[in-house]
């Protein structure tokens, strides 16, 4: 399906490339800002350094308010593999550690270290790697991480993670496309610092051992093409290629396709098709970090747009508030009906919420458009299904369908139409005749889906928790019942034994009682007959009339005693019967 290594090399050698579907050609406007050298700007009194400037997690703070710090000093420590440290852009005092407006479309305040410069700009002691060619791969990767380098082309992916690669690598691609209109920071960097970029590439080659290096520059930057070609001419496996200008050729996926015909799998990375890509500014920063030992504390920022009287490129320290850059660009407020500042380019940049928004590692441009230059968006009209959007989509999506499902919140359908393969390049919205802010709808739908997933994850977790609890309770109940069962069995067993005893006892008692009764009855009989004889004798002796009632009385007494004895026996019998019945009842219950 895709071209193999040799086919690609053959085509690259004659600068014959592939194409990506769609794409647009917005007016370039690069010449506004790319005419003069990158300028240095004076030190700022205050810098606002956000603790997190990349994709991943933030590092642990190493400084406290009031600390005196040196230029290049670590402000945070990288603790997890996904965190990248930030450094002090100059020497001075940590004035405050607080939340400050972020370089993000929302502007939601983020934890930032606010530094008051002391004006000395004193470096900490720098520790360059004397000879990277002899250095260990893992040491270099650690250095890249410690220097705080994350992708400077836009996404801000931590560079050390990308560099720590163990899969086979065919193409190391250096991205000098800079396809967004207006921006010229990479252009100027390549023109002025091609040699250092080459150094950075050399270091990457040493670490990654690619079969081939491709340096891709768009053909609207002939000077940069030339300087990069000169810088790389001694290296046989470095190929500088001239890529036809088309937006978004600089997108990672699109550039891989243009250079190799290969497509990065939807859920994969460029390395899955044998490629790794770095931005030229990242290469420059890598060379700084290894050869000079300098951490990433400044970058080239394009100040452009017709709202600035002197558009240019400047070296801006990370943490510089954009208001001072506007000053350097001679902001002309009369060109704008309401102030509007875009961080990034006109296609993918975002409007900042405050002039105190700081420059961060991914800020390549501050665009100040005059009102008539990039007119404010009008109300959207109805989609007429003209499919101009799908004609320009570089990912071959159907933007009008995605729009339809995003707008109607049919999120499952939107996902089915591969919403998450949208790279938000904005080509669709650029051509839409109904001026529908398509990307805006996609971002919202993506956020909604992510929220739903989080909710689902939460509810799944809750469900698992519930199930575990139910299972635990069930187990406890069973254990409890088992215990009861055993106990009752034991009791029954002992009861059976006891029960026998009891019967014996009762029988014995009955027997005893019977014996006693019989004995008593006999005795009574004997006594009676003896008495009768005696009586007879006394009656005969005294008189018969007295004797009779007495005899009668005695006989009655004797009868009562016998009766009492019988009742007691009956009660004992009934009692024994009842105990036996109760026992049987209990047994039934338990069974």
């Amino acid at each position: 399906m895709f071209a193999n290594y040799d086919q690609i090399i053959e085509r690259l050698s004659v600068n014959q490339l592939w194409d990506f579907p769609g794409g647009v050609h917005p007016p370039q406007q690069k010449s506004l800002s790319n005419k003069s050298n990158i300028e240095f700007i004076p030190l700022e009194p205050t810098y606002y350094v956000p603790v997190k400037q990349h994709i991943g997690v933030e590092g642990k703070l190493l400084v406290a308010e009031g600390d005196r710090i040196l230029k290049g000093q670590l402000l945070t420590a990288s603790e997890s593999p996904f965190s990248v440290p930030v450094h002090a852009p100059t020497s001075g005092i940590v004035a405050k550690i607080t939340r400050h407006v972020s370089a993000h479309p929302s502007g939601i305040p983020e934890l930032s270290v606010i530094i008051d410069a002391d004006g000395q700009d004193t470096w900490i002691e720098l520790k360059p790697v004397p000879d990277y060619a002899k250095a260990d791969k893992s040491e270099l990767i650690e250095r890249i991480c410690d220097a705080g380098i994350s992708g400077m082309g836009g996404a801000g992916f931590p560079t050390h993670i990308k560099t720590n690669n163990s899969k086979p690598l065919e193409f190391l691609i250096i991205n000098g496309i800079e396809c967004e209109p207006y921006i010229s920071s990479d252009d100027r960097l390549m023109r002025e610092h091609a040699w250092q970029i080459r150094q950075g590439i050399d270091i990457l080659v040493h670490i990654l051992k690619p079969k081939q290096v491709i340096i891709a520059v768009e053909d609207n930057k002939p000077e940069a093409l030339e300087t990069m070609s000169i810088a790389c001419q001694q290296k046989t496996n470095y190929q500088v290629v001239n890529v036809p200008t088309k937006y978004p050729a600089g997108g990672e996926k699109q550039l891989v396709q243009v250079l190799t015909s290969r497509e990065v799998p939807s859920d994969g990375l460029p390395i899955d098709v044998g490629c790794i890509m770095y931005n030229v500014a990242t290469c420059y920063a890598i060379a700084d970090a290894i050869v000079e030992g300098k951490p990433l504390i400044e970058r080239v920022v394009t100040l452009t747009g017709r709202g600035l009287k002197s558009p240019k490129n400047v070296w801006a320290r990370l943490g510089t508030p954009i208001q001072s850059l506007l000053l350097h660009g001679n902001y002309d407020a009369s060109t704008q009906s309401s102030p509007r500042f875009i961080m990034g380019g006109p296609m993918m940049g975002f409007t900042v919420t405050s002039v105190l928004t700081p420059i961060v590692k991914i800020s390549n441009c501050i665009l100040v458009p005059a009102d008539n230059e990039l007119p404010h968006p009008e109300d959207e009209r109805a989609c007429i299904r003209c499919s101009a959007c799908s004609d320009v989509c570089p990912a071959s999506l159907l933007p009008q369908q995605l729009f339809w499902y995003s707008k109607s919140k049919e999120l499952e359908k939107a996902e089915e139409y591969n919403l998450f393969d949208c790279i938000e390049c904005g080509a669709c919205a650029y051509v839409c005749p109904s001026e529908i802010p398509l990307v805006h709808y996609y971002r919202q739908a993506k956020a909604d889906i992510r929220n739903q997933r989080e909710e689902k994850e939460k509810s799944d977790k809750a469900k698992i928790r519930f199930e575990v609890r139910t299972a635990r309770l069930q187990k406890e109940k069973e254990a409890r019942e088992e215990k009861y069962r055993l106990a009752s069995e034991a009791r029954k067993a002992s009861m059976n034994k006891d029960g026998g005893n009891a019967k014996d006892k009762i029988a014995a008692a009955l027997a005893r009682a019977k014996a006693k009764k019989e004995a008593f009855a006999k005795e009574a009989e004997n006594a009676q007959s003896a008495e009768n004889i005696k009586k007879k004798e006394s009656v005969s002796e005294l008189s018969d009339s007295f004797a009779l009632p007495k005899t009668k009385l005695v006989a009655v007494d004797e009868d009562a005693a016998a009766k009492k004895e019988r009742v007691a026996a009956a009660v004992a019998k009934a009692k024994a019967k009842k105990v036996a019945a109760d026992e049987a009842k209990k047994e039934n219950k338990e069974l």
Partner: protein
Amino acid sequence: MTMLSLSSSPHHHNRRDTGQVMRIVCYATIPGILANIWFFGFGILIQIALAIITALVTEGVIMELRQKKTERVLKDYSAVLAALLLAVSIPPLAPWWVIVIGTFFAIAIVKQLYGGLGYNMFNPAMAAYVMLLISFPIQMTSWLPPLSIAEQSHTLWDAIHTVFTGFTSTGFSVEQLKVGVDGTTMATPLDEVKTALLQGYTVTEATTRIIFDGAYGKGWLWVSLAYLLGGLFLIKNKIISWHIPGSMLASAALLSLSLFLIDGDQYASPLFHIFNGSLIIGAFFIATDPVSASTTVKGRLIFGAAIGLWVIIIRNWGGYPDAIAFAVLIMNMAVPLIDYYTQPRTYGHKNKASKDS
């Protein structure tokens, strides 16, 4: 903190909006309309004027009822374009109420009742055309012969008079205007051939009548060519893509060619089919209506090709001499299905979008 102006990316936009697109399509019909006036008189202008007025009033009233931004909606020119396409499709001297009813139906029923621009499933002009054709068959088939062979000529005033009263200022009826110099009543070339074939004549015999110039109807060929010019202008300016007209004409030509090769007496040649009737205007101006057409590249090819096939099938075996409207409406119904099964393969995916998730 100063309030900054915020907006979502992209901040850049190319400046061709929906209104412009629709207007350019309207302009592209001008060569065809001029040719029509040249060969068939001024009737078409009156129909266009009536249709546009009716469309704007209808759409405006509905927008007011729906409490939408009336002016902004009217300025998208979609109603004007639909009216224009209906007006050029009906006989030039049809009574005024035919076009008024048709346009009202197109805008109010076919378009707005379905939700307005972008939501209508059927092409408004074609749905209205079919409604008129079925409801008022006499008025809708009273086509005039080209002026060059008509017994009676008529002026702009005659045309206005006829549309509103049914008679020219000098008292001729439409029936009388239809009579050719040879004294027989004229029909369209497609109708002539269809009738002749039913009467047992061959195609060649049928095309010897005076309204023909070789295989083509007098005047009709030039009108078609003029619309073709406008259509090519639209493609060149990327207002429409070539896929629908290209596949539609190709499939119509292929089917009619095969039939012609099988039996040239019973079936007319591809050139006859392409340049007579409304195949050209249908291919470039009607089937390309974005709202009711397929949106994927492959889908557009299928959509166009199927319309081409239906046109030839209905022309040859159906009850009507021409079939653009029926063919377009049939395929409008198939659009959701076509679009679903012709989704492009997304970057980084192995299969078609909806099947590999």
